[in-house]
């Protein structure tokens, strides 16, 4: 009786373990130790004549209050309450083959080695193109074609999509590369130079290729099932987190570069050219892959940050737009705004769509509508009002400004976003009034992704010929 445990006791202890393991402050080893203690105590009590379940109850009671105990553990192991990004294999999401220790080298730490190699590849691709062609304009125009294939390769390595998907994506990259490089973009007619490009249509094609190929890369991430709402939403979540990490890496990288330059300057060595010509382009390209790796590695460790930013900035942004409405009504001078007004408002609408999408991405679909959803209705309505004021003003003056490539592109984007937001507002009002299920709000945004892809493709393929490569 003393050494042989009855199955009933094992069940009791198993359920006790399940309850206690939920506490962050206790590691599995601690629970093992407490279980060992519990069994010793039960054994002693049953020897004294108690039944198993009586002994179990007393033993658990004598361990003391679990709240107090986990507070003690937390005081001793305070680090455990902060989730840490661990690079060893136990954090790997494909834990099945991580557990038995037979995981191949490249799969360890969520494939950090592969991500780093691809990052180096992206850096080399950018730098080699620049060295071979000696034409920074060409490198800028091809930036998406040079870097994003490595991101697609990373996704392909992780998701193993069907070969047909890979071929389709490769074809999209190839076609984009052909258009970007064989269209005879005008070299010197314009006086404005943006990002080393002289031709406005070249700039638009570059932006279009970045957005379009990013979405195409998402098809690889979706493992080929890109029609599904869920995989599209996952790619949107990935994109938001990726951007946050990329910006963080860029800030720290910039600070580190500045420090390096300052330190070397103090010993009369000027490393600015080296930083500018090597570290910056290679680092910026490589960070694309490192950020992508980070998003995957920390997925289960750290809370998504993009939705948190959304929660913080939605009220502030709403206030900003309401203030803008009041100001424009009081002064009625939005109409006299500069030609860049439309581009500025495209950015406003992009931010509004992003705020909406990332709050949707983190929302529990089953939760009833709350104050935040009502606030979003206000934000959407304010954005619509502001944008309609701007659109009316701009279209009324088209005759004066004319239809340049830039104006047409930003007008098109504006209309696309306006259509999205108008219907999103309608759905959001329906959702707040409990007439529309949350799933429709969500699927409207994911279903709209191909529209952006289409507009990006038009910018890359159709705009340059239409506007004579100006």
């Amino acid at each position, binding site marked *: 009786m003393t050494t042989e445990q009855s199955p009933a006791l094992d069940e009791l202890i198993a359920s006790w373990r399940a309850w206690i393991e939920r506490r962050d402050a206790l590691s599995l080893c601690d629970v093992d130790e407490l279980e*060992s203690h519990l069994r010793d105590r039960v054994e002693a009590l049953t020897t004294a004549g108690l039944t198993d379940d009586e002994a179990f109850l007393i*033993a658990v009671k004598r361990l*003391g209050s679990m709240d*107090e105990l986990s507070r003690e553990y937390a005081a001793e192991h305070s680090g455990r309450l902060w989730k840490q990004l661990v690079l060893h294999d136990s954090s790997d999401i494909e834990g099945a083959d991580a557990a038995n220790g037979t995981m191949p080298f490249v799969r360890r730490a969520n494939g950090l080695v592969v991500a780093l190699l691809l990052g180096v590849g992206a850096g080399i691709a950018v730098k080699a193109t620049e060295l071979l062609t000696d034409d920074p304009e060409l490198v800028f125009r091809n930036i998406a074609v040079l870097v994003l294939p490595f991101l697609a390769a990373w996704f392909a390595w992780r998701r193993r999509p069907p070969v047909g998907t890979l071929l389709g994506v490769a074809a999209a990259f190839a076609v984009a590369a052909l258009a970007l490089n064989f269209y005879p973009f005008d070299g010197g007619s314009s006086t404005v130079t943006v990002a080393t490009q002289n031709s406005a249509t070249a700039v638009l094609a570059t932006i279009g290729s970045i957005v379009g190929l990013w979405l195409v890369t998402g098809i690889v991430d979706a493992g080929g099932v890109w029609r599904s709402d869920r995989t599209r939403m996952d790619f949107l979540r990935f994109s938001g987190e990726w951007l946050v990490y990329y910006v963080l890496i860029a800030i720290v990288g910039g600070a580190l570069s500045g420090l390096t330059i300052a330190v070397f300057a103090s010993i009369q060595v000027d490393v600015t050219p080296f930083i500018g010509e090597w570290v910056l382009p290679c680092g910026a390209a490589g960070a694309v892959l490192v950020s992508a790796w980070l998003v995957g590695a920390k997925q289960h460790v750290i809370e998504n940050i993009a939705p948190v930013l959304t929660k913080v900035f939605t009220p502030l942004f709403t206030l900003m737009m309401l203030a803008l409405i009041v100001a424009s009504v009081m002064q009625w001078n939005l109409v006299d705004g500069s030609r860049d007004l439309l581009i500025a408002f495209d950015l406003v609408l992009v931010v509004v769509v992003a705020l909406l999408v990332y709050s949707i991405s983190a929302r529990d679909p089953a939760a009833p509508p709350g104050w935040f959803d009502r606030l979003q209705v206000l934000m959407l309505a304010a954005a619509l009002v502001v944008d309609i004021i701007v659109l009316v003003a701009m279209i009324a003056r088209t005759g004066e400004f004319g239809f340049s490539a830039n104006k047409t592109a930003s007008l098109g984007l504006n209309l696309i976003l306006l259509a999205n937001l108008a219907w999103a507002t309608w759905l959001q009002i329906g959702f707040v009034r409990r007439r529309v299920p949350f799933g429709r709000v969500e699927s409207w945004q994911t279903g709209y992704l191909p529209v952006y892809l289409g507009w990006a493709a038009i910018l890359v393929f159709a705009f340059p010929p239409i506007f004579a490569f100006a």
Partner: protein
Amino acid sequence: MRIGKDLVAAAATPVVLGILAEGESYGYAILQRITELSGGELEWSDGMLYPLLHRLERLGHVDSEWRQSPGGRPRKHYRLSEQGASTLAEHRRQWSTIGGVLDQIWPDAPDNRRPRLALGLD
């Protein structure tokens, strides 16, 4: 009689280190030994011993190792380290001083032999 919470907390470290000075041991046996030595009067909830042991381990006063119990279950054994031994000696000096002071304040306490023993003053 129940010993106050603060006094228990203050005594816990020297008591646990002292028991480990008798030889390596594990949580449940340490608690049994404390009950035995104090006649059941020095007690705290069982679980609280373990965070204390972990703190002593982090400070380097004890070393630990997982072993098999005779019944075949895993069990974590603790052993006093050299540093722990010197900490114990230091604790002992401090408690002796306090015990000496109390002995002089209460010269004719009815039962002043047992505390002297427990405090290592004999």
